């Protein structure tokens, strides 16, 4: 989602206009929250999202143009990676446990009937478990590309690496996800099953 006067809002925010910044928050908070949700789980997602916007406001002067969404998601990604590093130093709180506790796969879909809803939840659970097996940087690349739909140019900004590295991370992450899902193909909804 890109708003027409985004650049104007960013400029106003840089001048200290909190109202303009909050308009940007309203536009991007769902994406930021969902990234945090899939990276650190529901227990820590809220705090990570809030910290993202606080950090973004403080660092507005360092935004030099380009995609504001990518810039914001990069801040969120860094905060999530910090959180994961922090967890790794505390073995009691494992990442998988945290991810599965409040699984974002349980996000309800208002349009689905009960059977579809059950299948969708099942698929969501598998995907989330598969994502949890990936290294953080590959998971980040896959989430931003395949779930958030960022372009490769935006990905280079959001991940802070070259196009070649982005392609490589996505290719490796997808290959692992493919293996993970195909090993459980009988559990997949019919539309995602391939004939051998």
């Amino acid at each position, binding site marked *: 989602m890109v708003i027409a006067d985004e650049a104007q809002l960013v400029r106003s925010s840089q001048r*200290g206009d909190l109202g303009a910044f909050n308009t940007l928050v309203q536009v991007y908070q769902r994406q930021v*929250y969902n990234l945090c949700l899939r990276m650190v789980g529901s227990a820590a997602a809220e705090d990570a999202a809030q910290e993202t916007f606080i950090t973004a*406001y403080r660092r507005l002067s360092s935004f030099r143009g380009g995609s504001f969404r990518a810039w914001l998601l990069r801040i969120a990604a860094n905060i999530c990676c910090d959180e994961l590093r922090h967890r790794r130093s505390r073995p009691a709180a494992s990442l998988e446990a945290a991810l599965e506790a409040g699984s974002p796969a349980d996000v309800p879909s208002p349009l689905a009937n009960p059977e579809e809803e059950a299948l969708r939840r099942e698929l969501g659970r598998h995907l989330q478990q598969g994502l949890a097996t990936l290294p953080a940087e590959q998971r980040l690349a896959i989430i931003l590309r395949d779930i958030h739909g960022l372009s490769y140019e935006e990905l*280079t900004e959001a991940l802070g690496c070259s196009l*070649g*590295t982005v392609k490589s991370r996505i*290719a490796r992450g997808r290959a692992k996800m493919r293996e993970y899902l195909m090993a459980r193909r009988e559990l997949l909804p019919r539309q995602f099953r391939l004939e051998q």
Partner: protein
Amino acid sequence: MLKVLGQFRHRRFRRDLSAYLDGVLPQRARRRLETHLDSCQACCQELAELRVTVEALGSLPMAEVPRSFALAAAPVAEVRPRPAARRLEFGLRLATATAAFALTLVMIGDLAGLPGGGEKEMPAPLAPAAEETPAAAMEAAPVETPAAEETPPAIEAAPVETPAAAMEAAPVETPAAMQAPPVETPAADETPAELAAPPVETPVAAPPGITETQREEPPTGGGVPEEQPPEEKVTEGAGVEEEVQAYAADRQAAIEEEGGGLSRGEAVRWLEIGLGAGVGILVVLWAFARLRTSIRS
């Protein structure tokens, strides 16, 4: 051989499938992959599975936010150092880097045996052996210092200049140097050909030091590049070379794009890291060379 080449190609094509799916594969690579897909059932299957994986990931719904994350009050902005302070910091870091560079040069000069800096600068060497061991000669140069205790330098330095002077100087210094004259005096008195012969052993210490330095230096800069995608490492048959070159050009462009945004501070930081590593390695080599020289003597 052909089978191995085929496996290489297959592996490379498999890696390209993800980029192909997103339509970001360069045109030439795309055509090659499509030709390969016409004949490779395994890759076709993998592409289909990859497509399903991407579709499945894309089907995941976005959760609604539990609350608004709008800020109630403006957080305190980050305190950044003032421009003057930042300039001062930059200057100090640059000075550190320069000092490290100068130290590196001095150590390289010492290891490589470049003349200069001492009171007794070597004139045109008489024998090739003397030419090969100026490092040792440099050690002998500060005659008054205890460093002259090392005997080989005294042996080499003396014949080049005036043996008599060396003989006079040596006994005054240390007992170690006193042992030297009996060795060098006959050599000096006899023929210059014999003069060249004894020091042949000592140069052995110098060249390994030099070659080690040359061997060790490249890794100092090796730590700088970031993560490299494995695509680049693959070198295949002549048919794939063009493709690899095209990809490398694409990669280079990406790297240049990135490099364009490299700030002055970052450049100095990398310079400091590189020089720091270089100085560290050189100090170790230098100490090692010194140790070997002292053991030999």
